[in-house]
């Protein structure tokens, strides 16, 4: 399997990069629109899915890659919805706060992947030796 860690690191920083772009680039600039839209639609979900992935079944069934893509988008939108409405319903919404929370979720999830992978290996070990 591909054990490269750099995609996870990239994912972990993606939220903070987006926050940087969203606060520094002028409103409506193509770069800002692209970065924020892509981030909101993919990154949080990708990180959370990566976090859960080691605990799930191996991706050996047909269509698993498609499922991952669909889930990535669905989870990103769902997390965006939940974070967004939490702020709006409490009347505390600012872009800065919302993006910070999402970036934190993304980072924590992406950086937590080795942990869940370790857990999964631990869980699998007794079965192997048995």
């Amino acid at each position: 399997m591909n054990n490269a860690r750099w995609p996870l690191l990239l994912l972990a920083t993606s939220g903070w990069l987006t926050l940087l772009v969203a606060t520094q680039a002028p409103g409506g600039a193509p770069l800002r629109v692209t970065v924020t839209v892509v981030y909101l639609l993919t990154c949080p979900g990708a990180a959370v899915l990566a976090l859960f992935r080691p605990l799930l079944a191996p991706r050996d069934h047909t269509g698993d890659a498609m499922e991952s893509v669909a889930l990535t988008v669905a989870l990103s939108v769902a997390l965006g919805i939940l974070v967004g409405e939490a702020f709006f319903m409490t009347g505390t919404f600012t872009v800065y706060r919302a993006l910070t929370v999402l970036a934190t979720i993304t980072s924590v999830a992406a950086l937590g992947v080795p942990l869940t992978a370790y857990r999964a290996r631990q869980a699998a070990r007794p079965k192997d030796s048995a």
Partner: protein
Amino acid sequence: MEGRQAEEVIDEAVTHPTGRPASPAAAPSGPGPAGAGETGGTAETGKTGRTAKGRKAKKAARRAGKALEAAARPGRGADDRSRPATGGHGAPTEAGPAGDAGPDAAARRDAHGGGPDTAPDTAPDTEAGAGNAAGTGTEAGAGTEAGAESGAGTEDGVDRTSAETVAVVPFTGDDTGDGAPTVAWRVPAPMVPPARRQAPQERLEPSAGPDDAPSEDPPGAAATTLPSLGVVVAAGPAQSRFRLTVTVDALRAQQPAPEEIVLVVDRCPELAAWAEAELGGTGEVTVVHEEEAVGAAAVRNLGLARVRSDVVAFLDGDSAPEPGWAAALLDAYADPGVVAVRGRVALRWSAGKPDWFPAELGWVLGVPFTGSRIRTDPVDDLYGGALSFRRRALAEAGGFPEGPDHRPGEVAAEPAGGVKTELRSRLLDLRPQARLLHEPSAVVRLDVPARRSRLSYFLSRCAAEGRSQAEVARRTTGWEGLAAHLAPIRQGLPRAVFRAVTFTGPVDVKGYKALLVMLLGIVAANAGYVAGRLRTTRADGTPRETGQWTWFLSRTALPVAAVLWGLSLREVHLDAMTDLGLITVLPATFWAAVAVMIIGFVALLGDRRALELWHAGYTLVLIAVLHATPALLYPSLRYSWAWKHVSVIDYLIRHGATDPEITPLAAYHQWPGFFSFFAMMTQSAGLPDALSIAVWGPAVFNTAMLLPLLLLFRTVTRNRQLVWGAVWVYFSCSWVGQDYFSPQATTLVLYLTVLVVVVRRFRRGPIRAGEDPEGLGAEPPPVSGTRRRLVWALLLFAPIAAIASSHQLTPLMLVAALAALFVLRRHRNLGILLLTGLTVLLWDAVAAWQLLEARFSDIVESLGDAGGNLDDGLLSLGTAAPGQVIVAYADRALSGGVWLLAVGGAVLRRRWLRRPGLPLLVIGLSPLLFLAAGSYGGEILFRIYLFTLPLTAFLAAALFLPARRAFVRTLVLPVVLMLMVTGFFFGNYGKEQANYFTRDEVRLVREVHRVAPEGSLIVAPTFFLPAAYDYYERYQHSWLDELPRSREAVPGLPDYVPTRVELVQDPVPALIGLMSEVPQGAKAYLVLNRAQKAAIETAGIFPRGTVDRIRQGVEASDRFRVLVENSGGAVYELIPRKP
């Protein structure tokens, strides 16, 4: 006798290929098939617990049995057996989906029963005994086999004429199980020369299982006696006859010479005839001719079925063994644990070595890339030419797996790398202790003819290798196989760069060319791999050969349609639109684009080789044509509801909070998920408003539906035509227009994604395979344990909570669908159902309770009002414009047509629907529960249509696809699809006169918002005006079409509020009355924009001419003054009466 014994052993080993000791305890008491199913269900396939597609397997078995019968018939001699296509090849490819080892026992049973009449009664006994260890069952086995071979009637072991047993071997290693092909093997008894007869048999027996292999093996015998060797030589149409002669001569010259040489000629009768005459004359070479295009692996399997020696080696017609090859090879087999030995391949370039060919690329031609060059070496891969196997081990593994092979005729060569990767894992699954050896002293000289030394051949071979690795059943194994292939190239890259830069290296290799070719090879192999991974559905029912026209149409129609569509948009004049909607202004080129696209797509369905990216491309262009057309054509956002949603988002952005008050738009603030998300997106992107996002809503939401839809369809079928046809029908028939920028569109995508994951990942128990005569079913998803399901449920909580907090109806639909899935035992998951139900309940009871409480009486009233609901949804046709009547009928025709086709499809595929199709069926039917549940503002019928559409679209497509008859595909299907798209344009864009807004209309309303003081009243005939709800918290709105019909209907109606009847009779006084009641300092505005006329008159809400009468009356009245007027209409301000 020994021959028979050996055959029994082999037969046993083949029927119980696990290599585990087949103890009687493991076998249930049932008759043969079930017992064998238990003991023989190998590796992955056994796990999924399919209980066999019994009938189909039996059919295959029966066929196989007939083959045996034919073979065993007394009159047939040895020569007849040289054409065993029915048993050896015909059955293997199409024997049907095996599930487990059930079929093989059935085959044996039928084989016994199907044999000549002698001793038929003993068959069941033998079956019962068959579960026992092979060695002990010889008595009974011999008795039965005597029946099978009575034609020969020999007792002295000269059983070469008839002692063949047909065994149906399931292909294992595919954890997906149900769809795995079965191969019926004609396993001949070994034809052992008298001198060797004893020893090999003794060795063969103990190695039936890996556990008991070496102990009973007399070491002396193994050391002194070599196994017998058979060689299968494969030759294709491009085979040089001279080379073939060289190969055969070299084989004959070996010491010891091979016992048998089987020459399999692939699709070249001339070569077969020539070989029969020139080479087969002496009797040492058996020539077999394969007439169909089957691929390299199948060709070798055909040869394998003819060989009866202990060891079988595979060569192709261009490779000749060096002296000493056979001896070195057979020496390696002295160890009984060795199941495969790979020789060394030396290349000989008959057309000269190209100067771009570095040594690292040798694997492409079949040169192994692992293993020592000096000594015998255990290896972990089987890649390379010059392979040999212990025949029984190979037969147990089912021969060369044909799934991951090159496509027939694609690359004339060795079986692809994926075949060997798959074969290796099958061999090791069956015998975990088995050893694979690399024997460098067994050298095969591979002649590389001119056709194989071209760059084009090399690149296509690289791509084919990558593709074949993608088709290996275990994904990770395939990926590792590819990585192993590319490793030598990757490792050689630095050196190649150095040589290219410094012009060093071997003289016969141009450094820069070699480097370039290595890079190209990596790209081609990876591209092939990706392409293979994308090809995940089955092309059953698609013609084997693709006609030139089919190919041409399917490849050119897409770009042509896209260009035509783009050009046609320039000719659209929206002003000319009539009451039939958008369809009246679309030029002929637009329809030409649609027609071309449909024809191309239908042609594509008939092309078995097309990459599924093409299907996806067509579908995306269809989505673009259907949903991006307005985004490109209209000067501003389409549809006043979408404008309203943009206004709500604007409110959230301005306030940073939802509105807790119970206002007319309160529902949006009680379920604020969608609005929050897009408010966040708008602000993060720094856009002034959500308009530029909302414009692309329909196209994006439909595109986002594609993946979940594909996945849902693929859980119930793997038929490529059906999956993509259903997707196409779904998008063509999704006319209800709920895909605009809205919460329901967002939640629909999430809803389908959640359901797909539940179907795929929450499978609990076994699935009864049921009947599937057309072979449509998909291999079921793997069973998940409780812990995994728990993790999945945790993961799914986010989308479920998002759905529950974003929309009112969709969460209920989700609960209904999960409850419907609960009915199926395999998907019975209380946890996810409870999780969803509680989340929805919690949200409705806590967050949204305020609103629900306020509207409670309305909701209760509409409950169970199914009849009212039915009426609610349909347009009242009283005074509607003729165009709108046509539009309404077109909607109904499309909806009814889809349902009719779906019923037809359901009847036609009823057997598929009973088992494999069940998840889709229950998911698709669950929304029907809501027919009785509430009117949902008169929309429930449309919503139900939308939520059932995945099912109905699938079944409608299933009526035509997979199309066996050509005329259905070429004549009926395009017409049906064209009608669907036409119906879509009527249904979705039939009210476009009112749904599109010009820039001037937007300016009108914006001007009102600019000048109107807080608390002002904005009046318009309907709410079909852009930006109607901008700054809505500051203003009151009154839409004239929402006025009560009569005073009796609404008791206590204030006097100043006119009824609709009063308004139509005398508009101006009624308006003045309505608009006078504004708070101090506020004003009242009447907006008469362009869209109002279409919105209110064509739909028949007010009589024709009402808007004009209002306008004339207002302009004539001295109580109104024009605030702003432009081509988009006018805004009138009520002049307050002077006190």
